[in-house]
């Protein structure tokens, strides 16, 4: 197919695909899924942090957390807009999320149980997210790549703030140190899972790489994350919960244990510790908000017809 060939050549040459350009149906569908899931993750990702906003220990921490959650909602908005350029509406995507057809990042199905988790989420979860997202700034689809540029800038800010919380906790009282260690214990493997299972043998994955929707292999990014994070844990005086973790001189990388992939697939199947809570919260928000959306729509209609009548 010459159209497809031209499309691929443009990508290979480092060109961007824009909304009005021709694109293969698979490319479009994969992008919608990927951007949509990413957007959903930003939205659902507000919940584990929102869980501590009302209990933030100082005014400054409360403000930082509010700003972060506001950014996340903003990221969701950019991403839904990016997805809309591919011909799918925000409402459609939302409905697919709410009925469980579309997913969001599995990490948000884990609970936040202490204030140290606000640190761990910033440090580890945002850290892993950035690792995933930085290469996507060079993804082939223009609107997506541009959204990523904005998002990455803010995310790295969040990560630094998370690390700062973690540092305060790790250097705090005995109880605070215990919370910090416990947070690392609980979030370490779920963070590793954020890169997805090994995709060495996946054909799917090869196609996405060629389309520059996916830029690196999952294992590659996971390794990079471990290599970056372990020295930070050392710096904090915390112990990564992996007895096989060891620096490998030959490879120039850390050796580490795989996460429990059975758990990962359970979470994916909707059996994460908070999966039901998250879906319940989002569904309730949507249902409770129906009258607001309808009311505002009715008002807009009235205004429009009044304006028409006045012409």
């Amino acid at each position: 197919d010459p159209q497809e060939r031209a499309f691929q050549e443009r990508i290979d040459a480092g060109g961007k695909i824009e909304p009005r350009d021709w694109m293969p149906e698979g490319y479009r569908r994969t992008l919608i899924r990927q951007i949509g899931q990413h957007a959903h993750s930003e939205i659902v990702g507000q919940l584990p942090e929102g869980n501590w906003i009302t209990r933030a220990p100082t005014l400054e921490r409360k403000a930082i957390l509010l700003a972060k959650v506001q950014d996340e909602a903003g990221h969701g908005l950019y991403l839904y807009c990016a997805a809309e350029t591919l011909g799918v509406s925000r409402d459609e995507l939302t409905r697919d999320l709410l009925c469980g057809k579309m997913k969001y990042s599995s990490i948000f199905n884990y609970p936040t149980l202490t204030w140290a988790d606000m640190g761990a989420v910033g440090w580890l979860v945002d850290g892993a997210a950035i690792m995933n997202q930085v290469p996507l700034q060079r993804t082939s689809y223009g609107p997506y790549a541009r959204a990523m540029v904005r998002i990455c800038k803010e995310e790295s800010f969040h990560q630094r703030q998370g690390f700062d919380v973690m540092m305060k906790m790790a250097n705090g009282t005995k109880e605070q140190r215990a919370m910090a260690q416990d947070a690392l214990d609980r979030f370490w493997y779920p963070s590793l899972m954020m890169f997805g299972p090994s995709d060495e043998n996946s054909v799917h994955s090869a196609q996405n790489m060629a389309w520059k929707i996916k830029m690196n292999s999952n294992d590659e990014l996971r390794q990079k994350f471990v290599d970056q994070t372990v020295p930070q844990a050392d710096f904090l005086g915390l112990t990564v919960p992996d007895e096989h973790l060891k620096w490998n001189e030959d490879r120039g990388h850390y050796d580490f244990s795989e996460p429990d992939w059975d758990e990962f697939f359970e979470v994916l199947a909707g059996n994460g510790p908070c999966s039901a809570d998250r879906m319940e919260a989002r569904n309730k928000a949507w249902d409770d908000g129906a009258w607001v959306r309808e009311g505002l729509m009715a008002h807009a209609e009235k205004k429009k017809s009044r304006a028409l009548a006045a012409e």
Partner: protein
Amino acid sequence: MGDNTLVLGHRVSEWCGVAPVLEEDIALANTALDLIGQTTLWLNLAGEVEGAGRDADALAFRRDVKDFRNLLLVEQPNGDFGRTIMRQFLFDAWHQACLSALCESEHEGIAAIAEKSLKEVTYHLERASDTVIGLGDGSDESHARMQAALDRLWPYTGEMFTSDDVDQAMASAGIAPDPASLRPVFDERVTAVMTRATLTLPESDFAHKGGKTGKRHSEHLGHLLTQMQWLQRAYPDATW
């Protein structure tokens, strides 16, 4: 002022992640953020004036119900989104009038905070007005809910304009406006918005009191504090 913004900021932040539309998630978080920022300024100033070495965090997280001096309005629970946005509008309308007057305060610190806050609050008021109008003059259901919200919250507005000896002293000294003097601006704004929102102001001017003086808060504030102050109370020796 600091207790008002603290308590309302907390209430608004309870919406985190569960607003009716994404744009509202952002707007509510932004409002809460502004209010918490203002809280820090006001309570730090209050701590300085007190001179007992308490900073904004000490005042926010280590006082019990009786020592709070916020309007009863801001401690009322969120209810549905309509009640939340109506509460916001009624507060903003007063808050803007109050801050405008405080910009003229003889006390420099107060005038400076008021000036900074006024910009934010003017935006809040614009936004809340639009939403109240949109929902009031929206569908039958949204109209009914907004009218119910107004009826429910109206008795908490009167407290804004009552004054005690402290208020009178502050007014005489040119530090703060006489609360009653803010009523005309408030009434004008509220009437204009309610007209466009096709909502009817309640006839009764009965007013609940006791929040501003701390004499009798509602039962809701205590529950709010159990959450807000939990970490500071459970781990008094920690820094965060």
